[in-house]
């Protein structure tokens, strides 16, 4: 019997610790909390004794912005808020990216969440569905101004669950086409007129390709550098993969066309060329666009800061993502973050005052100027100082046709069913039609099983 003991014990300990991780992570969470309520009580006592008319409410604000560039900005915004009034004091807590969502979840389950948190804008409704954040409707109703008018409309849509807001949009981004003007001039294209449609993009790209001794030394454009295939599928018709009601739009003629277009592109250049180029991609000076290995690239708008810092000699222009055909729309895609009040936060009224301040013009334009991020507040984004930056101006223009892809409540993990099929099609392991047909039916099944 003894010899059976050891492996079995190890088996038990290992496997059970697994279920412990799943079930019991709230245990460790509580001890790490600095226990604000206790502090609060003490302060109350002291302040009452000192006969202060108003007692300050202390709020704990979580975000993952801890870098040398971001942290001072957010801390300055908080200290401005703390200085602007004398009833609320916000403390900033930096929680690393890898931890913040699970810690927040555990803290909510333990009934001791932070008072406000920066969270993914795409999952606000998904969390609302699980009662992880606070409905803001009662607070918004008390306002004289209409808070929703502050924001780009699609961002506001993203924070709604059953028509009610559960967070306020904070920032976002959008994809733009960057093109190298010198390369354009070199091959006889007008450096000031970038491609407008997919056909033009392809035509220009072929002219910009450079082949020496049968080997590509420069590639005009490749659609999957900078963004994924899914972005082109969204660009094709400006429609999300799943709508609010759970209808699935994956296997549509436009999206099939988009994926076929990409597959053709890969076939034309060849796997080897694509992989060989891709392997040498780096960041900063080694960025393919900055080093001139690629002439046009769809990139996040904040690629601008890389160009500013590392590509001083690159003469580039920036414009909207080309449309599928004339009139289909220069659709782009953006992500972003919202600021919300976790469910069960102790001072929702004060938390609301704080997140309202964070999304107001002053705080937002401060954030935009220092981080060159697209902010959710329209007036802040249209600040003349920001508009003088070419990229920012184009980006604000692109916001009109920038899709946000909120996680559908009915199929929060549909992307795990879609991506492998897209991979299969792009890698040539399945035909585009078959791949998207399979993805469509898989996702429909998922929606069906979650809708019950």
């Amino acid at each position: 019997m003894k010899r059976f003991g050891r492996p079995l014990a190890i088996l038990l300990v290992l496997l059970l610790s697994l279920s412990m991780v799943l079930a019991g992570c709230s245990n460790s969470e509580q001890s790490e909390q600095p226990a604000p309520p206790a502090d609060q009580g003490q302060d109350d006592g002291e302040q009452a004794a000192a006969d202060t008319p108003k007692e300050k409410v202390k709020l704990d604000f979580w975000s993952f912005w801890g870098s040398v560039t971001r942290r001072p900005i957010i801390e300055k915004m908080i200290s401005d808020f703390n200085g602007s009034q004398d009833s609320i004091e916000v403390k900033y807590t930096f929680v690393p990216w890898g931890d913040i969502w699970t810690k927040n979840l555990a803290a909510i389950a333990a009934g001791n969440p932070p008072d406000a948190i920066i969270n993914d804008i795409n999952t606000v409704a998904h969390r609302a569905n699980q009662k992880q954040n606070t409905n803001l409707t009662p607070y918004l109703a008390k306002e004289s101004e209409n808070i929703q008018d502050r924001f780009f409309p699609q961002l506001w849509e993203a924070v709604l669950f059953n028509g009610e807001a559960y967070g306020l949009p904070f920032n976002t981004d959008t994809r733009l086409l960057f093109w190298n003007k010198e390369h354009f001039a070199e091959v006889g294209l007008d450096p000031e007129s970038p491609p407008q449609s997919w056909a033009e993009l392809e035509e220009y790209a072929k002219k910009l390709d450079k082949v020496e001794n049968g080997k590509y030394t420069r590639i005009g454009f490749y659609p999957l550098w900078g963004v994924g295939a899914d972005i082109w599928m969204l660009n094709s018709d400006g429609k999300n993969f799943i709508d609010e009601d759970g209808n699935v739009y994956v296997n549509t003629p436009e999206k099939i066309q988009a994926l076929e277009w990409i597959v053709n592109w890969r076939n034309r250049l060849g796997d080897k060329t694509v992989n060989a180029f891709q392997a040498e991609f780096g960041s900063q000076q080694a960025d393919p666009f900055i080093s001139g290995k690629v002439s046009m690239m769809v990139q996040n708008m904040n690629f601008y800061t890389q160009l500013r810092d590392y590509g001083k000699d690159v003469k580039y222009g920036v414009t909207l993502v080309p449309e599928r055909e004339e009139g289909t729309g220069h659709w782009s895609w953006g992500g972003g973050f919202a600021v919300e009040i976790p469910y069960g936060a102790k001072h929702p009224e004060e938390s609301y005052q704080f997140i309202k301040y964070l999304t107001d013009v002053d705080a937002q334009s401060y954030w935009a100027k220092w981080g060159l991020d697209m902010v959710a507040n329209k007036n802040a984004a249209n600040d003349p100082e920001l508009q003088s930056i070419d990229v920012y101006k184009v980006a604000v223009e692109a916001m009109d046709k920038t899709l946000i892809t909120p996680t559908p409540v009915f199929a929060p993990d549909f992307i795990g069913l879609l991506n492998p099929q897209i991979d299969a099609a792009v890698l040539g392991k399945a035909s585009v039609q078959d791949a998207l047909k399979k993805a469509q039916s898989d996702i429909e099944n998922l929606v069906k099983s979650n809708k019950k």
Partner: protein
Amino acid sequence: MNRKTSSIRQREEIQGYIFILPWLIGFVVFVLGPLLFSLYGSFTNYNVTSRMDFIGFDNYKRMFTGDPLFWTSLYNTFYYVIFMVPLTTAGSILMAVLLNQRVSGTRVYRTIYYMPSVLSGVAVYMLWMQILSPETGLLNTLLRLIGVEGPAWLFDPAWTKPAIIIMKMWSVGGGMLLYLASMQGIPTQLYESADLDGANAWHKFRYITLPMITPVIFFDLVTSLIGGFQIFQEGYVMSQSGDGGPMNSLLFYNLHMWNKAFEVFDMGYAMAMAWILFVIVMILTALNLKYSKNWVYYEGGDNR
């Protein structure tokens, strides 16, 4: 007389329990409690924050009939275990045999080969992602030297799992140490008498070394089987944005479970998945134990 011994016995028994009490409390609070909780949770739609309604076998039904990724993840995990376990076991034995030779500098070699087992975590994965890079990576550069064009490893769905298995082979040093210790314990008389009988090196390995280290092989087999089923980080770290790699080829069972638990908040479903894995591993281990009688040799006799 009789009563006295029994009272001593009782006292010792109580003392014994007091001594193991810390472990007992820890076991009940941190292991048994969560375990039973997760068993119950697997029959609910628990989402950590707001829901915990009993839904019967729904989670299990959905797992087997309505979740294609469940099967993908199970396949990936089995694929990994089936190749990883025998390969690393054979690898560590081979390494141990080589390093058991009496040549100068064995200590240095042992240290070198054990070193990778000391390193762990994400840093190693990052290192391997560079080694496996298709164009500029060390592995493909070496293959090119002998005229072989290596695959795109982590970017080609057919090669992602082999790539990870190769990576695991790098750290066979841990198992090697166990085998080495066990080989050092084999009485030299056995080899001497084999020499007198005219046995060659292979015979000595096959009929002396191998049977003598079977208990360690058994131990290694069981633990690495269990460890193999728990693979998670490799899929999470070594695929872009942690989504399970090209065509979900690195979507391992635990990664899928993690996604269900912390991305979808379908904790009940994730708990049910944990239990299915538990059952699978239990069955495999029981089979292992059952058949071990046929090949594991204990020098002290069968009743140990």
